[in-house]
């Protein structure tokens, strides 16, 4: 990675993540309110698959909030607000979109692993940020780093 790039601080990354975590359900609720997609008894019947609807609302909200920024600038809304961005560790420039997509899906996917003994995976993924290179597990997998963008 280029020497003139400054790694983002752990605090900024945490706040950016919290912003994203709050914005996604907030938008999902807004979409739910406007469309009424989970407002009536029929929407909660087994055949209507309410859990799938909730999951879809979350995915759609995440994509609405983040896809443009991720695509164009390698940032989520939270990261843009905190002045940090995701770059390729190797080149120091915006990572390829496919890498960003895998990176975005990596962490939620860890929670889909159902074996009880795998519950530590998400924790390990996050704890790696306390290493010298400040990279989480998903950064290593996708070849990315998070830097300050002034």
């Amino acid at each position, binding site marked *: 990675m280029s020497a003139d790039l400054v790694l983002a601080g752990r605090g900024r990354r945490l706040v950016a993540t919290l912003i994203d975590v709050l914005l996604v359900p907030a938008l999902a609720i807004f979409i739910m*309110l*406007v469309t009424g997609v989970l*407002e009536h*008894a*029929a929407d*909660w019947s087994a055949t209507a698959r309410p859990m799938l609807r909730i999951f879809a609302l979350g995915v759609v909200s995440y994509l609405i909030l983040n896809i443009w920024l991720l695509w164009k600038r390698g940032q989520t809304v939270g990261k843009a607000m905190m002045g940090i961005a995701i770059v390729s560790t190797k080149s120091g420039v915006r990572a390829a979109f496919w890498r960003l997509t895998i990176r975005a899906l990596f962490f939620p996917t860890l929670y889909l692993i159902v074996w009880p003994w795998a519950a530590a995976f998400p924790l390990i993924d996050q704890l790696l940020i306390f290493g010298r290179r400040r990279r989480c597990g998903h950064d290593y997998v996708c070849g990315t780093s998070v830097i300050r963008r002034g």
Partner: protein
Amino acid sequence: MRRITLAAVAIAALCGHANATVCAGTTPGLAKFYSDAWGIDPSSTRFQPAERTSITAANVGRLRLKWVYGLSTDAPRSYPLVTEDTIFIGDSGNGLVALDRQSGCTRWTFKHEGSIGSAILHEGKNGSTTLFFTDRTEGIFALNARDGTLRWKRAPPGDNPVPLLSGTPLIHDGTMFVPLSSFEVGLAANPFYGCCTTSGGMAAIKTSNGDGLWYRRTIPTLPQVTGRHYWFVQNQAPSGAPAWAAPTFDAKRGLLYFGTGQNYSRPTTTTSDSIFALDASDGSIRWRHQFTSGDAYNTSCDLSERHPNCPKPMGPDLDFGAPPILAHTLDGRELLLAGEKSGAVYALNPDDGSVVWTHRAGRGGALGGVHWGMAVNEALGLLFVPVSDIVAGHLTGKGEARPGLFALDLASGALRWSHLRTARCSDRTCSPGFSAAIVAGPDLVFAGSLDGKLEAIDARSGKLLWSYDSWKDYPSTVSGKPAKGGAFDAHGPMLAGDQLIVSSGYGSFYQRGGNALLVFELSGNKTP
């Protein structure tokens, strides 16, 4: 070899493996059944005559715990069906099991992962016996009693998209009457949900194949939009009036009686917190009587009375959670006896629903008062009223709690005796009340308390005859699954021959959960 054994033990421990005692290949005896309905009989008397139980006040002291079956849930909701040699019971998460009465070994299991929430019913036709049970959400199941194979299953009848099968159906002459309640009472806790549109109901289906015969909503009018909150979410009404409990059948009049719960939203209806009498042939309403008007409540109110879905004003949630009992007084009059969560008991004229007498047994509240079921002994002219009076937050009734059992004169409603209970500790799980349904024998009554004690009470005097404390661990069980005792609630005890069968543990409403199916037997006796 030793290494292999140790490895097997380790694998079993890691997998939580448990071996049930199995007597597969043995066929259940189906010549004698000890009950015909949730209420033991279609009149819902919860009374076992001497032909069906040999346990009496004189010998109850000889009851001993015979075996324990570790159930797969900590809130068991199934009531057993007993034959001369077999106990059929729902083991939620595992399925319906047929257990040998003497050893507890499993004759067969109908595998089913859902929540079995009913008594097990039976019907014999053309030399073949069918068992029936309901899953709380999935519907109605019919099995071959000999081997537990599926005969048919169907979704809950009616027009409710989120139905809840809470009360046990009742079978009469090839027809099954199915009480219907609704999950909407819980969905309303979501502030973005447009509360509420569903109605309670009663349906009749054929026992031969599950086909529908008729369906009666307890709220005939369809819901309308009554307002909005958060700009977009539509408030709707009327709704609610669910049928929580089993119905009662009156063969003489051809009527089906059942109680309803509160409305979920306002405006309310005249059909909530009511007793209904339907014509069993077509579901038409012969009469109905409302006992609490203007009662609108749903679980959003438990979060906050300012919740957008909490009806304003919030009602007291005073359902009829227990089936009405059709009984004869000593002078031959017929009465329909209805116990309400308010703690009030009403005796009605079964011809028109007019009130003959009223008695207030407890202070009541959202969890009773009278919660799951009363019992009668017609020969003694007594109605036995279990009272919970557990603290139910802001829905606790007013006045002093009177947890215990009360005997009322059937003809007049006058109090004959009371058996009041005191708490064993101050924790909520130590509530001393009788919330579970009770069962009466010829000269005694069995009741299980919320604080885990099973008691036999003299029917004539109210004197405590026998008590068993189920608050303990049962590490060794016939199912191979360790069991724990807890609160007695829901369906309560069953008497069959020289055995007393009851599930201990009910982890709902912050009570002490448990999974122990306890089978007691008179020592030194043979099962009749």
